[in-house]
C-alpha cells in the first residue's frame, strides 16, 4: 500500500530526469573538428587556419548558431603527417564525435585520414590547395587545384614577356611533381617549350647543379613549385646569388613567406585565390573583423586560412538547406549551397570542387603583393568524374 506513493515519486523523478536530459541534449553544441598541423611542416600556417575557424564560429554563434545549436570547435594536432593524422581523425570522429571535419592537411595527412572518414561517415571539407584528383564520398574541396592556378602565370608570361621557353624547378614530392606535370602540359598546349624540368629532394637545400643547368639552358621564364618554407627561401636566395633575373613564377609561395624573403623576393609572380588586398567589400569586412577579434595576435590571413572560414559557412548553409545534421542529407546539400566570402562566391558544385577567382600578383620591393590581373570563375576541370 505504501509502495504506490513511492512508486509514483520514483516515476516522477524519472520523468523529470528524462525531460532534463532531453533539454540538455537539445542544447548540445554542434562540434566541428579541425585536425591541423600544430606541429610539423604545417605548424607555421596552422595558427592562421585556427583563427579563421574561430572567427567563423564566433560570428555564426552570435547569429544563433546552426539550426538553433551553438557551434564549438575541436582542434587536434595531425603532426602534418600520416601517422599523426590517423590519431587526430580517430580522436575527433570516434572520441569527440564531431559532426563534421573542416580543415587543411598535407596530402599525406589527408590520404591517411580519408579511410577513417569513410569508416566514420562524417562530412569532410578539405580547405587546402593541392595537386588535385583526390576523391572520396564524404569529401568536398573549396580550395584551388593546378588547373586553376597555373594558367594565369603561364598566360601572363607568354603575353607580357613573349616567353617561349620555360624552365621548371620543383621539390620531389607529390604536390611539386603534380603541379609541374600539369604546368608542362599546359605550356606545351599553349605552344611553348619546356627546356628543363628538375627536382630536388624535399629537404634538399643545395640548388647549385640545377641553377647551373638553368643558366646553360637560358630560358625565357622560370616556374617553380617547391615545398613550402625553407626550399622556397633557399631556391630564391641561390637564384638571386647566381644573378638570375628572368621572370620567375612561384606556384607554391604565400604572401607571408614572400614578405619575409625581403629584397630577394622582389619581382616574383604568384598566383592564388586570395591575397590580403583584394578590393571587395566582403574581404574588407573580413579583414576588419579578424583585426578586431585578434588584435595584435592576428596571423595574416592567407590562401590556406580563408578557405577554412568560408568552408564553415558552407557547412552551415548545407545543414540549413537539408534541415538536418544527418551526413546522408548534408553531403548532397554541400554541392548546392554557395557562400559569398572574402574570395568571392564559393560553390563546390564542380565534381566536389569549386570554380574560383584567381589573382595574379607580383611581389613588390616592400614585400607586399600587387594584384596585376584577376580571372573570374576559373574552372577546376574534371577532378572526380566518378563522383557526382
Amino acid at each position, binding site marked *: 500500500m505504501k509502495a504506490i506513493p513511492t512508486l509514483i515519486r520514483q516515476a516522477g523523478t524519472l520523468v523529470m530526469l528524462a525531460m532534463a536530459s532531453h533539454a540538455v541534449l537539445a542544447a548540445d553544441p554542434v562540434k566541428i573538428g579541425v585536425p591541423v598541423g600544430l606541429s610539423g611542416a604545417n605548424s607555421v600556417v596552422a595558427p592562421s587556419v585556427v583563427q579563421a575557424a574561430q572567427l567563423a564560429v564566433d560570428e555564426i554563434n552570435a547569429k544563433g548558431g546552426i539550426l538553433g545549436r551553438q557551434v564549438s570547435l575541436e582542434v587536434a594536432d595531425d603532426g602534418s603527417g600520416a601517422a599523426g593524422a590517423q590519431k587526430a581523425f580517430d580522436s575527433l570522429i570516434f572520441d569527440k564525435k564531431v559532426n563534421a571535419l573542416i580543415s587543411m592537411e598535407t596530402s599525406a595527412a589527408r590520404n591517411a585520414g580519408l579511410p577513417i572518414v569513410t569508416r566514420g561517415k562524417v562530412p569532410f571539407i578539405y580547405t587546402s590547395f593541392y595537386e588535385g584528383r583526390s576523391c572520396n564520398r564524404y569529401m568536398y574541396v573549396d580550395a584551388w587545384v593546378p588547373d586553376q592556378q597555373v594558367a594565369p602565370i603561364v598566360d601572363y608570361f607568354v603575353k607580357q614577356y613573349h616567353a617561349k621557353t620555360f624552365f621548371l624547378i620543383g621539390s620531389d614530392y607529390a604536390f611539386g611533381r603534380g603541379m609541374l606535370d600539369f604546368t608542362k602540359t599546359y605550356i606545351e598546349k599553349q605552344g611553348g617549350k619546356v627546356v628543363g624540368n628538375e627536382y630536388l629532394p624535399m629537404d*634538399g637545400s643545395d640548388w647549385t647543379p*640545377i641553377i*647551373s643547368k638553368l*643558366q646553360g639552358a637560358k630560358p625565357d621564364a622560370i616556374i617553380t613549385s617547391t615545398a613550402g*618554407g625553407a626550399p622556397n627561401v633557399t631556391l630564391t636566395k641561390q637564384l638571386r646569388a647566381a*644573378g638570375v633575373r628572368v621572370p620567375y613564377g612561384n606556384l607554391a609561395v604565400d604572401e607571408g613567406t614572400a614578405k*619575409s624573403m625581403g629584397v630577394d623576393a622582389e619581382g616574383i609572380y604568384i598566383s592564388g585565390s586570395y591575397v590580403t588586398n583584394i578590393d571587395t567589400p566582403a574581404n574588407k569586412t573580413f579583414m576588419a573583423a579578424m583585426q578586431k577579434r585578434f588584435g595584435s595576435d592576428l596571423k595574416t590571413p592567407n590562401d590556406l586560412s580563408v578557405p577554412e572560414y568560408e568552408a564553415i559557412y558552407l557547412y552551415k548553409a548545407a545543414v540549413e538547406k537539408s534541415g538536418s545534421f544527418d551526413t546522408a542529407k548534408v553531403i548532397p546539400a554541400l554541392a548546392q549551397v554557395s557562400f559569398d566570402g572574402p574570395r568571392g562566391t564559393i560553390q563546390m558544385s564542380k565534381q566536389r570542387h569549386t570554380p574560383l577567382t584567381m589573382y595574379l600578383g607580383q611581389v613588390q620591393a616592400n614585400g607586399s603583393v600587387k594584384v596585376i590581373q584577376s580571372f573570374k570563375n576559373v574552372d577546376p576541370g574534371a577532378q572526380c568524374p566518378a563522383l557526382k
Partner: protein
Amino acid sequence: MLNLGLDIATTAAILFIVSAGLLMVFGVMKIINFSHGAFLTVGGYASVIVAHAGLGWWWSVPCALAVGFVLGMLVERFIVRPLYARPLDAILATWGLGIIVGQIITLIFGRGVQMVASPVDGAVPFLGTQYSAYRLILVGVAVLVALALGWLVNGTRLGLQTRAVIMNEALARGLGISSARVRFMTFCTGAALASTAGCLITPLASVDPNMGVPWIVGAFMLVLVSGSSLVSLAVASLVLGGAQVLVSTFVNPVLGGLTIAVLAAVLLRFRPEGFARG
C-alpha cells in the same frame, strides 16, 4: 665545364666547413656527435639574432663561435662525458639532444623560416664566367679553416697533446697529459666550429629549426671515411662532394642527394679506413 668545376670546388668547400667540427670530435673521442645538426642550427640563429640587433652580418661569426663553444661545454660535461665508455649510447644521447635543441629553438623563435640578408650579393665575373660571389668566398673560408685547424693541431701545445691522445690515449695519460681536458677542449672547439659553419651557410640557405638535420648524415659519412685527418677530410669532400655534383647534374639531383651516403657506405665496406692512410 668551368661552371661544373666551380660547382664541385664550392660544394667541397661547404662540405669541408660543415664537417670539420664533427671530424675533430670523432678523431679524438671516437664518438659521432649526432647533435652536430643542432649546433649548425644554433649558429644559424646566432646570425638571426645579430641581424635583429642591427649589426653587420660579419658579427655573426664570432657570435656563433662563442655560442657554440659555450653550448659545447655544457653538452660535453653533462652528456658526452658520462658516455665515454658507451659510444653507441653517445650517438643516441646526442641525437636526443638534437631533438631537444630543435624544440627549444622552435619555442623561442617559432617554427617559421627566418631570412638573413647575405653580406655579399649576386654573381661576379670569375675566370670568364658569372658565378655566385658568396660561394667563391666560401672556398677561401674553407682554406682558412683548414689552415687555422692545422695550426691549432700542429703548432700549439694543446694540439700536440691532442694528437697524442688520438694516437694512443693510454700512453698519453701515462705521460701526464690530461685526456679529459683534451677531450673537453676538442668537443668545445668542434661545437664552436659547427656553430660557425651554421652561420656561414645562412646566406645560401634559410634559417629554420630543422636547418641542420639534412647535413648530419652527409657530414657523418664524410667523417667516417676520413678517420681523424684533416687532409683526408679535404680529399673526401672533393671526391664525394664532386661525385654528388656530378650525379646531380648528369643523372638527377634526387640520386645526387644520396650519393655521399651510399658511396661512403660502400667504400667503408671494402676499405674501413676510408681515405685515411692505412
